[in-house]
């Protein structure tokens, strides 16, 4: 990642392209934006930094016309303007690439782009235009593919090409690299460089500080709806930026105690193969993996390469055919269901918080019962629920994991994503499981909450448990995993010590290298060229 664009970037000296002056936005009595000022110059990549809930999305939606400010002024090239709708924003020359792509799965690339461009009535001509622009900016695309068949990186290209066809002068990108492999991210940065070289400005929203330091000319930092600082991110350290975002020094993770060597194997997977349960799933091919007491093993991979299927096989949501396929603490568990595996000392945190990890309409205490009813906590006595015991547990989890909530025992759905994630990870760690399997432990969680969760995972492992994390976030894997394996199209690579790997090596493995498929080799060649 620290390649070609390492050169020092200077902010262009020119007048403002767009200025937001004193923008405020009220939701009821809640101030999502409080007198925010933002100035973007042509040709610069301007970072907008802030934790979840800092008001970044609100500000961006106001600039893109999907929200109207309660107060304040927007100036476009010095002229005061109103932006009543996204189409008005597009007419001005503002394009946006969304974090959760605003694409239509069932439609083709051309159809998707045609929807945003009312003036292109001839779809064949539009398809040719898409091919031209996508080549020009290094964003290869087939106009007649359906979105559902595209990878996440390709979908993002569709979004970007859609913006580029409108000749934008300002491109807003919301967390663009959160779904990309390192190679895909590098390709994106090159595209952004080509764009800024032509005078287009980019508003770049991210909480990946290293990447902001690498590519952005200037940064505006939001906290609790207010601008707390403006700076040149290349001049600041990542920890300085992080503390500006969080408002306090971010806890630095400590994994000082090395993982114990020659400890006993707590979780063992032997030759796990499962056919795909439905045509859009991934089959698992002969997966074997051992995890010792005291260590964290990270599974890296691009979304949709069998992570969900692997998690289901480990948790027992999809039992294996033979009992010895999965062993928990030496006991064969392959044919057991989730509750039976929990009884053996294992705990599981699935990827989706809402609906899989927690029931949104149930209180936190009820949610505790859902995974802890058979784990020796005495929450059930002859089938009768011990409500006060449940509340005590929920309280204890809330306190030790700093779950911020509006009431004593609120509904799970009322918590913010980060706080709910702390709660459901905490619920499992609280019982000191001997084996913990976590999928995407800090997905969509801000830096502060992520640090709490990651530290808790390290502490759990060092106290003698085996921890498996399945994550798409390479930073996270490098931060806490002792060994790393990569899952690709249902194959799991041999786990290797995290310190022996570079990001590039992992990235290549994530792109499918090692399966010997020609497709993968092509991607590799492409990545090397980049």
């Amino acid at each position, binding site marked *: 990642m620290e390649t070609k664009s390492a050169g020092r970037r200077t902010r262009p000296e020119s007048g403002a392209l767009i200025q937001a002056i004193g923008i405020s936005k009220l939701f009821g009595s809640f101030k999502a934006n409080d007198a925010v000022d933002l100035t973007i110059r042509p040709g610069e990549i301007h970072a907008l930094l802030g934790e979840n809930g800092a008001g970044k999305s609100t500000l961006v939606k106001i600039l893109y016309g999907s929200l109207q400010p309660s107060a304040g002024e927007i100036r476009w090239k010095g002229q005061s303007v109103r932006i009543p709708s996204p189409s008005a924003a597009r007419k001005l020359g503002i394009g946006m690439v969304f974090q959760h792509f605003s694409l239509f799965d069932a439609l083709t690339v051309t159809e998707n782009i045609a*929807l945003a461009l009312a003036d292109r009535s001839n779809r064949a001509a539009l398809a040719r235009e898409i091919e031209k622009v996508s080549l020009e900016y290094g964003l290869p695309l087939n106009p007649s593919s359906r979105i559902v068949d595209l990878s996440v990186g390709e979908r993002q290209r569709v979004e970007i090409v859609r913006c580029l066809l409108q000749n934008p002068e300002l491109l807003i990108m919301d967390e663009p690299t959160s779904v990309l492999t390192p190679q895909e991210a590098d390709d994106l940065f090159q595209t952004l460089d080509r764009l800024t070289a032509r005078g287009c400005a980019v508003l770049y929203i991210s909480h990946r500080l290293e990447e902001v330091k690498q590519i952005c000319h200037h940064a505006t930092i939001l906290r609790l709806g207010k601008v707390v600082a403006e700076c040149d991110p290349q001049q600041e350290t990542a920890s300085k930026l992080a503390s500006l975002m969080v408002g306090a020094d971010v806890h630095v993770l400590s994994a000082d105690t090395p993982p114990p060597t020659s400890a006993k194997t707590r979780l063992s997977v032997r030759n796990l193969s499962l056919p795909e349960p439905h045509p*859009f799933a991934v089959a698992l091919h002969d997966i074997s993996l051992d995890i010792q007491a005291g260590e964290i093993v990270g599974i890296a991979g691009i979304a949709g390469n069998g992570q969900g299927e692997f998690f289901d096989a480990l948790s027992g949501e999809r039992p294996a055919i033979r009992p010895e396929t999965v062993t928990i603490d030496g006991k064969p568990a392959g044919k057991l269901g989730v509750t039976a595996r929990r009884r053996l000392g294992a705990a599981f945190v699935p990827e989706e918080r809402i609906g899989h990890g927690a029931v949104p309409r149930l209180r936190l205490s009820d949610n505790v019962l859902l995974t802890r009813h058979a784990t020796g906590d005495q929450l059930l006595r002859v089938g009768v629920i011990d409500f006060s015991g449940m509340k005590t547990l929920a309280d204890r989890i809330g306190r030790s994991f700093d779950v911020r909530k509006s009431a004593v025992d609120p509904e799970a759905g009322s918590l913010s994503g980060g706080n709910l994630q702390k709660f459901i990870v905490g619920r499992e760690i609280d019982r000191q499981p001997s084996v913990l399997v976590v999928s995407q432990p800090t997905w969509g969680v801000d830096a502060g909450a992520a640090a709490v969760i990651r530290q808790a995972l390290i502490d759990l492992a060092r106290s003698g448990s085996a921890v498996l994390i399945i994550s798409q976030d390479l930073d996270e894997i490098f931060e806490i995993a002792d060994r790393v394996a990569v899952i690709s199209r249902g194959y799991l690579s041999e786990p290797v010590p995290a310190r022996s790997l570079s990001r590039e090596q992992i990235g290549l493995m994530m792109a499918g290298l090692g399966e010997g498929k020609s497709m993968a080799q092509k991607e590799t060649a492409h990545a090397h060229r980049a």
Partner: protein
Amino acid sequence: MRQRFGDVMTMLEGILLTIVTAATPLLFAAIGELVAERSGVLNLGVEGMMAVGAVCGFAAASTTGNPLIGVLAAIIAGMLAASLFGIVALFFVANQNATGVALTLFGLGLSGLIGDSFVGTPGIPIPKVDIPVFSDLPVVGRLIFGEDPFVYAAVVLAIATWWFLFKTRGGLIVRAVGDNAASAHALGFSVLRTRFLAVLFGGACAGLGGAYLSLVYTPQWTQAMTAGRGWIALALVVFASWLPGRLVAGALLFGAVSILQLHAQAIGIGIPSQFLSMLPYIVTVIALVVISRNRALLSVNTPACLGRPFVADT
């Protein structure tokens, strides 16, 4: 010998003609529902809208003596019934399934009320198209050149709907709204307006299908004369995997089953007539099971937001 052959051909022609007329009301109602579902709205009130269309079409035609006014009245009545659904289910975000079923019950009841005084009244005949020479061709002559105008209208409507959905910007917007309402909203399209218009179109088509029943198919009004055709139309949309071309084939198939079972009853094969009457509905169930197994086909064409209400955040 020659005489026998002629008889068989005449009978075959008769069967084919009745199959086409049995398929036509299904095709009308299903085309409308297909567009509504493509926009993401599941309107289970097709049966009710057809009943309202049938009675209003018949009442208007027999009062004015002009079948064309009857057709217009049926279309308007269908749209009014659909707008009721649209307002409740889209703007007041009521549960679409419950609202649709309520509309069916309401439509059946209302049609009985309106139609009470028209029971037994003779209908106004609508002349068939007759292209000289061509319609005298053996077998295919009347089948292709001698149908009533509704049959041609239904086929044209199916083709026009296909063209609209897949070749025009308006159709693209309808499909986009049905695939991902939130994204369509983010792009600046009005999800509710698109859906409301699609639901109105569905109502107009269901009304037309109802009018066909009371003005052409059996030119009279009887209580509950739609006889579950609205429900079959709903199933047909799934059967056709939301593609207008397959809808035509599906409607003909269901028309064929419902006509052939009549002939089977007439010939007197040893199966109780009740079982034969069940056949179209059993075929519906089987067809749905078979089609639902083909996930690859469904995944491409099923509107992903089907039945899910949309509320814009402000």
